[in-house]
Each structure stands twice: as structure tokens, then as C-alpha cells.
């Protein structure tokens, strides 16, 4: 599962470039002059960090599945009970899973870092260190976003215990339930819902390529209010996980 995530993400990142090139060609052939051609290079420093972490946003569900399995396996094999009678406290059990989530998020950020460094140096002309590191804060935002999402997945898995059901609940929540309020009311109404606020950490790059996708929110910055909201939710998910495990018979 983990390797699926890494491979899919890399393929998507690589594929993006060719999709843009192809769209450009189509646009030229149809000859609609009013539509500006898309900039062809998304791999330029420093914007590459923003671009790739935005694309990676759509792949975090794979990591969430890994996280869910990590937690629900403990229930299926009853190893939570084994760890507990061996001497781990309930708090330590939850901490070990939070640690797993941290590792996964870190691995994901490192993957983006390596990918970005490689592709960035290939496509950027010249090498200005300030350009390379300038927008790396998007990697940190990516880390926080994945970690927040994984802690939600972890909380659901701790509560539900079953892998398939947890994944279903996460999918239904992430792709259906949370979209309803935004649909029904104003667009910004759902901004403080857990997933949307986590996703708002990295908004679509405000460039022509992504303009073309008609995304509702765009920003080239990471706003501190979104960081705070994401941190609050992440803490909440971890705390709920802890209280669930503390109250429950294992």
C-alpha cells in the first residue's frame, strides 16, 4: 500500500508535465486564441514545491489506508491486548500509533523533497540557493496536512476497529459529507470543517495551469490561521484516540 502511494504520486507528478504539454497542443490545434497557453514548466524552483505538494494533496488517501490498517491490525490480531499485558500503558499504545503517523508523514515529505530537488535541478536553469529553498515551507505544510489527515484516519480506526469500515467511513466523510455544507451554503462555510481546513493549508497555485482547472480556492501562501486550525484538529484527533483507547476494554 505504501509503495502504491509512492509510485502513484511519482507517476502523477511526472505525468502532470505531459498532460500540460498535450493540453497545450490541443489548444493550439483547435486554435482558440482567447485561452492563454499554459505555462509548460511546473518544475521550476521555487514554485515546484508548491506545485508538487498541491498535487500530492490528492494522494494522501493511500497513506490514510496504510494508517488505518496499522491500527486495525492491532485489533484483528489482538496485539493491543498483548502490548498492554506486556507492560505498555494505553497512552503509550496510542503514542506509538501517533509515532507511526509521524513517520509516514515524514516519509511523504521526504519523497517530495527528493523528487523536487531532482526535477527542480533538471528543469531550472542556473542554481540559485535562495530560489531552491524559498518555498520549501510548502513541504512543511505538506507534512502537517498529511499528519492531520492520518490522525483523523487513526481516530476513525481506533473507534471502528475494522479496516474496511474505517476506510469507507473516511471516504464517505472526506468526499461526500464534508462537501455538503460548502455546497448548500456559501463556499467558505465549510472552511473550518476538519478536512477542508487541513486541505486549505496548501491551496491551488495561483497560476494559469491551475486556473485552468477551475478550482475554488487559490493562494500562493500558507496562512497562519490554517496552520492553527489544522494543528487544533490534529491535536483533537489524537486526544480522542487516546480517550477511546483509555475507556475501552482491550
Amino acid at each position: 500500500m505504501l509503495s502504491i502511494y509512492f509510485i502513484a504520486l511519482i507517476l502523477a507528478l511526472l505525468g502532470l508535465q505531459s498532460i500540460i504539454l498535450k493540453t497545450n497542443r490541443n489548444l493550439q490545434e483547435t486554435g482558440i486564441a482567447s485561452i492563454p497557453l499554459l505555462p509548460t514548466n511546473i518544475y521550476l524552483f521555487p514554485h515546484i514545491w508548491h506545485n508538487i505538494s498541491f498535487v500530492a494533496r490528492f494522494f494522501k488517501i493511500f497513506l490514510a489506508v496504510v494508517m488505518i490498517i496499522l491500527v486495525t491490525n492491532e485489533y484483528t490480531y489482538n496485539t493491543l491486548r498483548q502490548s498492554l499485558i506486556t507492560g505498555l500503558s494505553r497512552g503509550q499504545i496510542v503514542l506509538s500509533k501517533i509515532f507511526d503517523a509521524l513517520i509516514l508523514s515524514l516519509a511523504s515529505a521526504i519523497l517530495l523533497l527528493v523528487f523536487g530537488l531532482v526535477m527542480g535541478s533538471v528543469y531550472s536553469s542556473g542554481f540559485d540557493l535562495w530560489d531552491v529553498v524559498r518555498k520549501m515551507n510548502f513541504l512543511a505544510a505538506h507534512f502537517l496536512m498529511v499528519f492531520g489527515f492520518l490522525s483523523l484516519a487513526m481516530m476513525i480506526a481506533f473507534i471502528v476497529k475494522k479496516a474496511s469500515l474505517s476506510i469507507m467511513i473516511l471516504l464517505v466523510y472526506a468526499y461526500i459529507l464534508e462537501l455538503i455544507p460548502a455546497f448548500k451554503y456559501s463556499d467558505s462555510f465549510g472552511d473550518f470543517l476538519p478536512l477542508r481546513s487541513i486541505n486549505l493549508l496548501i491551496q491551488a497555485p495561483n497560476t494559469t495551469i491551475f486556473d485552468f482547472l477551475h478550482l475554488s480556492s487559490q493562494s500562493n501562501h500558507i496562512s497562519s490561521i490554517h496552520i492553527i486550525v489544522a494543528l487544533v484538529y490534529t491535536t483533537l484527533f489524537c486526544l480522542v484516540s487516546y480517550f477511546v483507547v483509555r475507556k475501552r476494554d482491550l
Partner: protein
Amino acid sequence: MEVLRVNGLTKTYGSLIAVNNLTFSLKRGEVYGILGPNGSGKTTTLAMLSEAIHPSSGEFLWFGKDSGLNQRSKLGIMLEKPNFYDYLSAKDNLKIIADIRGVDYSEIDIVLKRIGLFERCNSRFKTFSLGMKQRLAIGAAVLGDPQVLILDEPTNGLDPEGIAEVRELIRKMAGEEKTILLASHLLDEVQKVCTQMIVLKKGNIIYDGSVNANAKNEIIIELMAEDIAALTEVLKQSVDFANFERKKEMIFVKIAPNITTSILNAYMQQHDILLSHLAYKKQSLEEDIFEILNEIR
């Protein structure tokens, strides 16, 4: 010295009282058996003492304190069915346990040899037979040489040879000044391994005391028959039922605890005696225990 004190420990599941108001204590260096048929609350009790499940009410103190983490390292616990990672080897599973308990990896091989899994230590857990899994669970409990051992049906699923080995292991550890609490549905096992026993029936303690004081006792069964003379004659000639007395129309037979009423009944039928009454003598506490012990056998 008191190792464990349990006070009014109770666990309910909805309307079912799985464990009802248990009060007992364990002294250091003794081997205790919790004896009771399936569903009598043995695992539930041990799981509460291990803090895997929360008591509905009551309390217990390990070494005179509310159990905390520092106490846990003194307890080696094995509950019900063995729970390990299927896809890891025996050795890797024990490494996880060793990490948690802060035990040196060098002890793992010693334990593996002790439980007879050394040759298979690199096989995945899921390839193990039930007996091997059970032995690994015992290994996980004894890793780190804890002062107290809690063992839930440790010989479950083992072949006769394995059973003998595990009992030998327990006896050996009993000789090392360890306090052992062993749950079993086998009277025979408790008698062979334990010095003290607690008998559970539907979550209630019905006996708490020495193993031997009880095992030597005999049960009294009441018999009545149309032809009481023929009955006494058959009894006199039998091996197992010759110890009886007659009071008016009722015969009281003293039998060893390993004999059930059905055996007696069958014996009478073989000798063409039609019993009109067959019952345990009125249920005193002690007789109640034996009835259960007979049930479990």
C-alpha cells in the same frame, strides 16, 4: 507477604454478571489455581487484574499499590488465546516484547529454549500449531523473569507431551519463589500444579483454600430403591461404592470425587437395581464444589 489483594471485583456485560464481587488475596511464593468450567469468569478476572479490561466495580492492589507501570514489569501475563503478529517470526515477536519490557535480547534465546521453540524461532507465527502458539505466549509471559505469573489455561491445545512440559515448567518456576496464578478448567491440572485454589461458578467464588484439604474429601450420595436389600447387596460387592450407611429407607454412599452420579446409576442398571432416588446429599458448600468439579471433568 501479600502480592495481590482483590476487593469486591465485579464485571458485568449488560445484564450478564461475568464476575461477581470477588474478594481474595495472593501470598508470595504460592501457586494459586482458578478453577471453573468454561464461562465461569476466569479469563474476565485475569484480564481485569492485567488491566486489559476495566472492572465494573471493585478494586485490586498489586504489591499494596494501585497498579502503575512500574508494577507491570513484575507481572508476566498470558491471557486466553495467544495474540501475536501473524507475519512476524517467533523471535521477532519476542523482540517486541523484550523492547517493551526493557529486557536484553540475549534472554530471548534462553526463553525460546525453555519453551522448546528454539529450533523454530525464525518461523512465522502463523505457521505455528496451536500448541506452539500457546508455548510462545508462555514464553512472552516469562521473558524478563517477572515475580508474578498469570497464566490463563496454559496447557490449552497442547499435546500430552507439551502439557507435561508446561506443567513441569510451572512447577520449576514455583520453586523459584514466584507467585503463580493459573486458570484452568481441569481439576487434575490444578491438583497437580497448585497449592491453593479458588473455585469459580458463574462468576462467584465458591471455594477458596488449600487444594489438598479438598481433594481428599469424599462426596455423599443418597440412594433409594424399591428393593433396598438387593441394593445394599450390590453396594457391598462393589469396589467404588462399598462405603455406605443406611438410615431407614435411605442409603448414603460415600464416593471418591472422581465418581459421578451417572457412573453410579449406570452401575446400578447393570446390576438390575431400579433406583427410585439418586441425589447428592443436601447441598452444603463443600458438596457444591464437588458437583462443579465433577461437571468440569
